Structures are given as C-alpha cells and as structure tokens.
C-alpha cells in the first residue's frame, strides 16, 4: 500500500544521526546529569554537547540555551516570566501565533493585569512592521512574532520588528519552531531577546525543545524544584531526547543549503503542476517570503475534511490546518486571519514536504489529488461547486 507522508510541519521522521546519538542512552548508557559520579558525568557531557550544537545552529552561545520538553513549554515560559517580572502592562502578538502564545496571552489578559493587542497579517500572510509598531505603547512589555507560520509557511519580518522594539526597550519573543532546520536562523541577525525551537520539527525526537535567552536578559523558571538549566528550568534532563536534538541540530547546520534546495524543488514542482492537474485550485501566499517546504491550497467547492480523509485512505498524509488533539476539523484561524472566508478556509489543505520525500511521490500525490478532488466534485451539488451557502 502507498504511504506518502506530506505533513512535515506537524512532525518529521527522525534523522538517522539523531537516532544514532540517542541509542546509547536508550541502551547501555544511563545517568542523571546532576549526579557527581561517572554515570552522571557522561550524561552531563551528552547534554552539554547537545547544547553546543543547538547554539551553533542559531549562532548563539551555549549558556544562552535553556532546554525544555516542548516548544509550547518554551513559549509559555517566556510569557509567564514576563507576567511575573512586570506584574502588569501590555503585550503585542500576531493574531496567528501558535496557540502556546495566543492562549498564554489570553490567560494573562483574562487574569486582568495585561492588555493584549493582536496584529493581523495582511492577505499576503505577512504581518506588516508598521502595524506592529503602531500597536506599541509605553507600557508594552513583550512582542511575540513567529519567524514562519506553521500553516501557510510565510516568513515574518522579525528582524525589522525587533529593531523597532529594541529602540523602545521592549522584549521580543520569536517562535522559530517551524523555521529552524528549513531556513537559516541567526539570533544575532534577528535581534530578538527570546527564540524557541522544537526538535521534532527538524528530524529530532519528540520531547526535546529549546528556549534561547539573550545574554543579560532575565528569565525566571516556569518549572521549579531543581537547579537544572542554570536554575532556569527544573527537571531532570531528558538525556536521550536532548542527545537527539543536538545531533539533529548538527545535521541541520551541515545540510541546510541542500535541504532548502531539496524542499524548494519538491514544492515548486508541485505548485507548477497543480493548476494543470487540478483546475481551480488556489495556492495561498505564493508571492510572499515563504518556507521552502509548505504549500497551502484551496479547492473551491471541495470540503477539505473529505479530501484529507480520501487522501489518507489512498495513502497520502496531509493536513487541513494545525494538528488537533481530538482529531476534529475546524476552520483554520490562520486562514481566517489572512482574509479567507470560512468556506474557503474549510476547502484548504496544507502540504508540507520533507527531506525523505522524492519527486515521484510528488507526482503520485498530484495524481491522487486530481482523482479525489474530481470524485468529490462529482458528488457535490452544483450550489456547492459555485461556492454558494
């Protein structure tokens, strides 16, 4: 049976180098990095080696890296730190941030001490620098802007926003979870104060992520009860996962130009061929700076949920939006934010290519897509085809 995975923005398969780095810690080796004995020393060494590799990928210094269990935890840690440190004030976030930022901000707003301004992207899927600057206030404590959107893949003007914030002494958090490993990411070039990444989005393991905190910027721990991570995150380190994260970071650094080229070639082949194979398909935000691997397509008159399920039954894994814990489908907030109607949003699919995809898989996918869209259109009443209701 066909089995083609085209949902790499949800998660990616493990890189062989990451697997190799993890295996000793799932087998013959074990140790608590905080232990004084040699078991602990070896584990400590594995964690610090990983820290160096992740820092190197970002052009950062190893002590600036705080390991966490997830990108969500890392993002939460920053927002709740700011809330503790500043007690009250104003936050600016883009309206299509990851829920770990949106909902953390909403909680601070609900608790009453913080006001939140949500800046929407334009129809090009990009948040305008001027719109963020216009939202800044004297009491703005933090600005959150993702580097690349998880659904439509558009790259945001983080460096420009960070420059404007720096002049005003406002901290900036950049969620780079979707960008790291796909495009070059340099904390210095971005000029932000906090940056987050997650291993499993770039062929590392689940359960390992990192928060970069600019030297001199304070971060109080979200989790307390231990002195790990220089007292910035209590918990015994997840040694195997962090070893995998380090190896995945090193592999990403070494392979980055080849990755970008491979992914862009797959995506460009898909997007070039799509209009011919599936008439009426609409690609979103192709004119904007984008990740090399992400296509977001609307199929007017076709229910995205039905198309996703048909493709899955046929052996092709794609997504209609961000992955959801209960597996149900709701219109994507991101697509609504870039000005699509509910119907258009519900007719869209996200295709995110990965390093293990081959050109012949793109070809097979196009054929399946054409077949399944046609089958749905045959079933659909004319009113749906014309986009009514």
């Amino acid at each position: 049976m066909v089995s083609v995975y085209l949902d790499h923005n949800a998660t990616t398969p493990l890189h062989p180098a990451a697997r190799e780095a993890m295996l000793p810690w799932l087998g013959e080796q074990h140790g608590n990095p905080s232990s004084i004995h040699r078991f602990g020393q070896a584990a400590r060494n594995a964690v610090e080696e990983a820290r160096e590799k992740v820092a190197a990928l970002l052009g950062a210094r190893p002590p600036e890296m705080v390991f966490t269990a997830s990108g969500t935890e890392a993002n939460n840690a920053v927002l709740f730190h700011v809330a503790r440190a500043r007690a009250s004030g104003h936050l600016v976030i883009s309206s299509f941030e990851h829920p770990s930022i949106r909902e953390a901000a909403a909680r601070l707003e609900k608790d009453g001490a913080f006001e939140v301004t949500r800046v929407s992207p334009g129809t090009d899927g990009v948040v305008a620098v001027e719109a963020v600057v216009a939202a800044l206030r004297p009491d703005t404590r933090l600005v959150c802007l993702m580097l690349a959107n998880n659904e439509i893949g558009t790259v945001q003007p983080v460096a420009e926003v960070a420059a404007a914030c720096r002049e005003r002494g406002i901290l900036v958090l950049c969620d780079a979870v979707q960008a790291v490993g796909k495009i070059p990411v340099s904390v210095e070039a971005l000029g932000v104060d906090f940056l987050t990444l997650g291993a499993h989005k770039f062929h590392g393991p689940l359960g390992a992520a990192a928060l970069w905190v600019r030297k001199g910027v304070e971060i109080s721990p979200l989790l307390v009860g231990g002195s790990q991570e220089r007292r910035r995150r209590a918990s015994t380190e997840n040694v195997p996962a962090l070893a995998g994260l380090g190896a995945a970071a090193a592999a990403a650094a070494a392979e980055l130009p080849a990755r970008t080229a491979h992914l862009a070639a797959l995506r460009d082949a898909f997007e070039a061929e799509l209009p011919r194979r599936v008439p009426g398909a609409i690609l979103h935000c192709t004119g904007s700076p984008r990740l090399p691997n992400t296509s977001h397509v609307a199929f007017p008159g076709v229910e995205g949920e039905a198309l996703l399920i048909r493709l899955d039954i046929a052996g092709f894994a794609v997504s209609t939006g961000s992955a959801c814990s209960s597996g149900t489908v709701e219109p994507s907030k991101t697509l609504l934010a870039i000005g699509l109607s509910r119907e258009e949003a519900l007719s869209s699919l996200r295709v995110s290519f990965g390093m293990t995809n081959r050109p012949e898989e793109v070809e097979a996918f196009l054929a399946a897509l054409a077949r399944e869209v046609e089958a749905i259109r045959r079933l659909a009443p004319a009113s749906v085809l014309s986009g009514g209701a």
Partner: protein
Amino acid sequence: MGTSEMGLTAVAMSGGLDSSVTAWLLAQSGRPVVGLSMLLWDQSGVEANGRCCGALDLGDAKRVAQQAGIPHYTLRMDQEFRQQVVDPFVSDYLAGRTPSPCVRCNTWIKFDLLLEKARSFGAERVATGHYARIVEGPDGPELHTALDPDKDQSYYLFELSRQQLAASLFPLGEMTKPEVREIARRAGLVVAEKGESMEVCFVAGGLREFVEAQVAEHPDRFAGAAARLDQPARLVNAAGTELGEGQPYYRYTVGQRRGLGLAAKSPLFVLAIEPEENRVLVGPEEELLAPGLRGERLHWIGREPAGPVEATVRIRSRHPGVPALIRPREDGTPGTVEIDFAEPQRGVTPGQAAVFYQGTRVLGGCWIQGRL
C-alpha cells in the same frame, strides 16, 4: 465478488462494545473499512467553540480502530445533533410529550448526515452496531427484527427509507449480546468488558434537570418556556375536580404512578399532560387503558398501502406489541393515522413512536399524538 472489489464501508464507532465488534468483524472479513466517530455532544465541560474538544468516549473508538487495523476519523456533528435531536427532545418535554431521541438520531444523524459524509469520503455504505436485520425482499431491502429479541433495536430504525437501508449494514443482527462480547474478548478488544451505554447518551444526570438546564442556557430556543418551568401544575381527575398542586407539568410522564403526592383510596396514575392548561390529568389504573391511538408523521419503509393494514404495533421500545388495525384518519389529514388495538393498552404516551410489524418485518410507524 472478491473482497478486493468491494466498496469502502464506513463503520459508525461510538467507542462502545457493539460498534467496536462491528468494526472488528468487518475488518476481519477483508473488505475495506474506515471507522468514523461522531462528536455529538460535549459533556466534558470544555467549551468546544472553535477549539479542539474533549475526546470523550472516542478514545476507545480510536484504540479499537488500531486493533482492527483500520483508519479512524472523528467528525464534528454537534450542531446538527443539537438541531435534529437535542432541541426537539427538550421541546417535546415542554409540550408535555415523552420523546424518543434515538429514533431521530438514527433518521437524521446516523443514516442521513453520517451517510452523506461517508459517501463524500468514498464509502458506499454505513455499518452500525444496531441489533436489527436488513433482508432483501421482492421490492427491495426490508427492515427486520434482530434474531435476539432481548436486544432487538428495530423499533429505533422505523423511520429509515429503502434508500437508507440499501446503504446500511447491521452485522450484529443475527447475534446475541453474549456472542458479541465473546468476539470482543477473543479479539482482545479494549472495550470487551464495557457495560451498556446510557439510555439517553447526551443526558448524564436526570432528564428533567437536563431540560431545565437547557431552557436556562438557551432561552432563545425555547421561547417563553422559562417562565412556565417553576409553576406547579394543577392535578385534576377525569371529572375536572382539582385534587391539588403538583410539580411543574413537564416533570410528569403518562403512566407514572409514583411521586404524585396525592392521597386516594386506590392508586392514581398520570393519564394526560396538558401544558396549555398547566394541568396534569390523573385517574385510576383502568383509565390508563386505551383502545387505540392517534398518530402523526406516518412513515412506511416500502410502498404506502392503499387501505387499512393489520399489523402488530409496539407503542414503546420495550412493548411486546399488540395486534392492531392501522387506518387513515377520517378527516383525511395526510401523514396521520388512527390505530385500533385488539386489546386495550396501558401507557399510550405522546412523543413515543408506534412501530408496525408483520412477523419480524418492520413496515413503518408513526409518532403518537394521543389515545383514542
């Protein structure tokens, strides 16, 4: 026909024992199968609006699907379920009727909306864990009772059409519950020891409390109802004599004996509920006996008969059935009937379904308006 040429079958999976065994059996038969679960009603207390919702019982459905080796998808159908099942359920109580929501769920949700969704995924049929049989007759598919009379659920399926039956599968129709459980045990399904599901799946506590909560939560849907909810009903006998004040009218059910709070020489029963008058009619047991019923929203599974029909009629799901004559109403209102029982029956309850049988075959049915 080899299994490879068989079209895709969608199994409605609730996470319960019956639908799990249905999915497992179909997957074992080698035909292509996909599991579908419906998110109908969120009881987790998590506001579901625009967000990922609580997984409810559907986690078990997902696990069974993995055990059966089939893909599984959860479909959000809570809005339609509310419109087609929950709101009419509440409205029935407010109108003094005792509703039968499972029939509406089968008619409008499982074998309509779910079937339509399944077709959009490429499926040809929907299979469910119902205990009933579909038998190919001379004029098309017929609905029949399950072989196990204790589990028979054909009553709840009487509103299906031939087209719906043609696209349905009930693999458990020839099995008994112990056999089904044994299959689950032998297959090692995670739901093998699960008990029976709740009577009304969307009501966790008391029915009357549910009605009150719904009216309080959605006053717009049940206009004017809130004001009447706490008014005590007047309890009157057949002669019109007021016997006292009771609870609000919607808390009573026809045939109810307990909880009337009236002192009388012989036990009193609820005979009828009259919401407009805010009255509950009570009387001795013999007055519960009705010679027949008036029905509306008549449905025939096959062709509509030209004249009166003799059939066994079940007036609630657990009713053994009574021989009866089903005849068009004298005023000729379309979709209405009068039914004469061969013997008077207790508890003709407005809001329940009257389902017509000839032998094991379900001919159709109607909704009870009142007694004759």
